[in-house]
């Protein structure tokens, strides 16, 4: 997940909690305040009427048209002692002007006069105004909550996005970077400490790598050249010796063996150097290659070469396997796997090849399964050295696959060795 979205998601929970808490408290405080104000109005109203009554003055009209009402009833002393002297509550009060009942807030007060008589006054005030007000407060608090939440998130995303620009430039540079090719300098157009540090470190690492890469390339090139020449010279000298007329049979035999060993050494050198080049990424320049065609060619070639041993091939063409790979490497991969299959097939048997859009497999008959854990390591030979084999064929095939996003797998099924090359996801 991209960093911006992850940060946004992380933001959401605490924001919702904080804003929600604030909104809820704000609403509760306001509604509590509104209720208290109503009660205070009722108290003043009640006190006013009591004061009038006790001072012997005229009492106000019970239904004065302004929705608030009162009534006074005389009560006994027992009643006064048993009930709380002040009571607030909610009730349905009758509004004369509306000729209907309305939800109201009421207040009851017990008081006594000079003659010791007890009274209870009930005052009431309809609450629809307050309730409507509270409803509005709730509604608008809710809207404010949503607006704030969205606004804060959007602002958060924009702010982070803006500040991550240098980081994104670095990411883009990393996408474009190909080892071995001339790379643009690491972008460090920023005065943010961390990004600058990151850019500088990456630049140093890249420079160091590029330097070592060059050194290694030069070394491999030198080694290849330097070793090949003396080896070739040795080989030629032996060939010249073999042409001497004064050669006896024994010495000739020894010379032939020597020549064969030398040939092995030359092949080993060539393959080892090829393997090093592949692993050093010197064959990473890729183009679209149709491996089905390569398979067809290599099967045709090997059929001819091994016809003497009765080894034939069958090809199941289930699709065109096209992938991005260096053309030489495609040839090396297919060639190596095919040659392996043919060499290890018993007389008069068949090498079966299966190819489809996402890969291919080559199988040949066998007795016992190979050691999967060491199969693709260099110089692995099952059960003793086979003459002429470098032991590097599978290691080479494996490296080529690794560097080109392919998976090389081995299976032993129904007495067959099956090697598959599949496009990695």
């Amino acid at each position: 997940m991209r960093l911006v979205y992850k940060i946004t998601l992380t933001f959401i929970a605490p924001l919702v909690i904080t804003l929600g808490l604030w909104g809820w408290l704000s609403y509760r405080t306001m509604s509590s305040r509104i209720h208290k104000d109503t009660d205070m109005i009722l108290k003043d109203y009640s006190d006013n009427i009591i004061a009038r009554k006790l001072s012997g003055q005229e009492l106000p009209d019970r239904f004065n048209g302004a929705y608030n009402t009162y009534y006074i009833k005389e009560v006994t002393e027992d009643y006064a002692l048993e009930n709380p002297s002040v009571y607030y509550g909610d009730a349905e009060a009758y509004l004369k002007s509306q000729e209907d009942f309305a939800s109201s807030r009421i207040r009851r007060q017990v008081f006594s006069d000079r003659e010791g008589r007890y009274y209870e006054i009930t005052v009431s005030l309809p609450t629809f105004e307050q309730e409507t007000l509270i409803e509005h407060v709730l509604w608008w608090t809710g809207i404010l909550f949503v607006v704030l939440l969205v606004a804060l998130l959007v602002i958060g995303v924009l702010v982070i996005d803006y500040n991550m620009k240098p980081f994104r430039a670095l990411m883009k540079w990393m996408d474009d970077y190909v080892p071995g090719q001339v790379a643009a300098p690491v972008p460090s157009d920023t005065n943010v400490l961390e990004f600058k540090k990151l850019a500088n470190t990456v630049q140093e690492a890249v420079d160091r790598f590029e330097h070592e890469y060059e050194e290694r390339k030069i070394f491999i090139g030198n080694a290849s050249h330097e070793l090949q020449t003396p080896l070739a010279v040795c080989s030629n000298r032996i060939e010249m010796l073999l042409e001497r007329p004064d050669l006896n049979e024994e010495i000739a035999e020894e010379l032939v063996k020597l020549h064969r060993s030398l040939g092995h050494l030359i092949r080993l050198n060539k393959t080892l150097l090829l393997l090093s080049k592949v692993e050093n990424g010197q064959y990473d320049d890729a183009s679209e290659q149709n491996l089905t065609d390569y398979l067809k060619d290599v099967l045709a070639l090997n059929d001819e070469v091994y016809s003497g041993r009765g080894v034939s091939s069958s090809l199941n063409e289930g699709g065109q396997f096209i992938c991005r790979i260096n053309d030489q490497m495609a040839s090396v991969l297919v060639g190596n796997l095919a040659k392996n299959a043919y060499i290890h097939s018993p007389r008069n048997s068949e090498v079966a090849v299966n190819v489809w859009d996402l890969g291919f497999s080559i199988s040949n008959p066998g007795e016992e399964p190979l050691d999967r854990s060491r199969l693709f390591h260099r110089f692995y030979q099952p059960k003793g050295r086979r003459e002429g084999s470098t032991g590097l064929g599978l290691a080479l095939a494996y490296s080529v696959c690794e560097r080109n996003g392919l998976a090389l797998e081995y299976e032993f099924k129904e007495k067959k060795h099956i090697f598959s090359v599949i496009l990695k996801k």
Partner: protein
Amino acid sequence: MKSKIIKDTVMKKIFAIAAIALASLQIIKADDRPVTFNQLPAAAQAFINTNYPGEKISYATVDDDFIRPDYNVMLANGVKVQFENSGALEKIESRNGIPEGLVPVQIKDYVKMHYPDAFFVEYEIGRKSYEVKLSNRLEIKFNRSFNVIEIDD
């Protein structure tokens, strides 16, 4: 592991804040708690005994307000008196006139001069002002030096 510790401390802080906030809501509710004459502060009792000797109490309550608790006393003759927490007089309302000697001389003189036919029905001692209400429905506000700041009717 580290993120769990951070999450825990943050969560604790959130709950603490929430708890405090919810608790503070309780304080906004104030009640009219009934009290007897003897439960009034001494100064309040003295005031009533001095100015209204023998007068019965119709009812008395205390308002447990967080900011300023005060006492409300309704005498059986319809006089309503409000006392501060200390028992000092805060406000007195009487439809039939306020006892002599309660209102400061300067105010009395002013009213006698401007409204000779009016008597006091209400007298309030504010923190920085005095407020009186006359029988002609006029409300006058004085500052501490007894200069008129406001007249309202």
